[in-house]
């Protein structure tokens, strides 16, 4: 299935764990340190660097872009490290999370509660994932280096649905 951002959560209902999904539009990276800072902003009612409603968050930190290239390598990082922050992020209306690896129980419950899904990108395939990106810009926390929040303009960015809205999990079905 193909989806454009911002995501209409109604469309996520049709997706099943194991489905391939191609996302086009804008997605934002955020990993450990960016999550910590985002949550601080949320808790203090400060403006956020991007609109989280209907957003897609990709747990990733790119390698630097070579001159003449669009982007460096940019595959997913392991998701469980973001588990602690995820329920609060989902409350803001985020629709799709992308990373790799199993999520904790609280995250799975929170995904269903907020009608959001979790998907996996190919781990260790940063060069391939980078080839689906048209443009990359830093939108927040540049001081974090690779952990900054990057805005990625993507076309048919390929992911696999891990946790669907019916509570299925591709990592646990076999």
């Amino acid at each position, binding site marked *: 299935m193909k989806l454009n951002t911002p995501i209409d959560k109604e469309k996520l209902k049709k997706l099943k764990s194991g489905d391939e999904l191609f996302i086009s539009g804008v997605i934002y990276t955020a990993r450990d340190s960016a999550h910590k800072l985002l949550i601080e902003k949320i808790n203090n009612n400060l403006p956020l660097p991007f609109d989280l409603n209907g957003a897609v968050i990709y747990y990733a930190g790119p390698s630097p872009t070579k001159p003449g290239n669009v982007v460096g390598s940019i595959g997913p990082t392991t998701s469980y490290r973001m588990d602690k922050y995820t329920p609060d992020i989902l409350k803001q209306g985020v629709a799709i999370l992308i990373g790799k690896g199993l999520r904790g129980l609280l995250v799975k419950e929170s995904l269903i509660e907020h009608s959001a899904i979790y998907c996996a990108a190919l*781990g260790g395939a940063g060069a391939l994932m980078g080839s689906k990106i048209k443009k990359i810009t830093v939108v927040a926390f540049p001081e974090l280096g690779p952990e900054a929040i990057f805005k990625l303009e993507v076309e048919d960015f390929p992911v696999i649905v891990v946790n669907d809205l019916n509570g299925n999990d591709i990592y646990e079905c076999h």
Partner: protein
Amino acid sequence: MKKISYNKIINSIRDSIIEINCVPSSELLNKYVSAIENEDNELSKKVLRNLKENAIIAQENMIPICQDTGTAVVFLNIGTEVVIEGGYINEAIFEGVRLGYQEGYLRKSIVGNPISRINTGDNLPPIIHTNILKGDIFNIIILAKGAGSENMSALKMMSPSDGLEGIKNFVVQTVKNAGANPCPPITVGVGIGSNFEGVALLAKRALIKDILDIPVDNSITAIETDIKNKLNSLNIGPQGFGGKTSVFDVAILMEPCHIASLPVAININCHVIRHKKIIF
């Protein structure tokens, strides 16, 4: 006396760091190919095809196979009859690593302090293990080690009565817990023996066993094969989506230990195998 210039060491390390991160070895490409043939289900085959395609895109564009270009782990093996001309060897290693990560557009993934977590900006420091040898032998092994797989590693001071079965169960449980996190198909390095700090290093060295010139020991090969078969029947599969290829290899290194101890360490590497031996 063998004389090697300080600059030659810097340049070789810089070039090797870039090469291991951007150019897949033919062994790695072959591992993808045989795993594709070996899998039955379409999703696993497709995942493996994509991993192979990724490695080829990286090589063609000289960009990293994986964005986590790792911590640089350096094994320095140097004989007493080797002289480094023009500088201090550890400084040459630091400079080679710094230049490699900078000029190769590799990701800087090291924070200077594990609590305050400010990025050092140059991927320094590397982790250096020095081994002083006899004669004029001089080689440096470099390993770019990603954190997703490193984080899934484990160490246990087992009881001698746990024996071989206990060791195998510990490996199986560790790999099972790791699941999709370390980007399978993985390589599992197992250290058995030594002591607390020694066994961790054994497990790390096991990950590069293929370039260590260690004579084959059939009894150890049998254990490695048995564990590998057990792990590949866990149905973790490429990227954890199920399948027959959860691990590419299991490598074991053993050393003597105390009568009261059975130290076991498991160091996990992802499918992106990145190491090289530089011989001077």
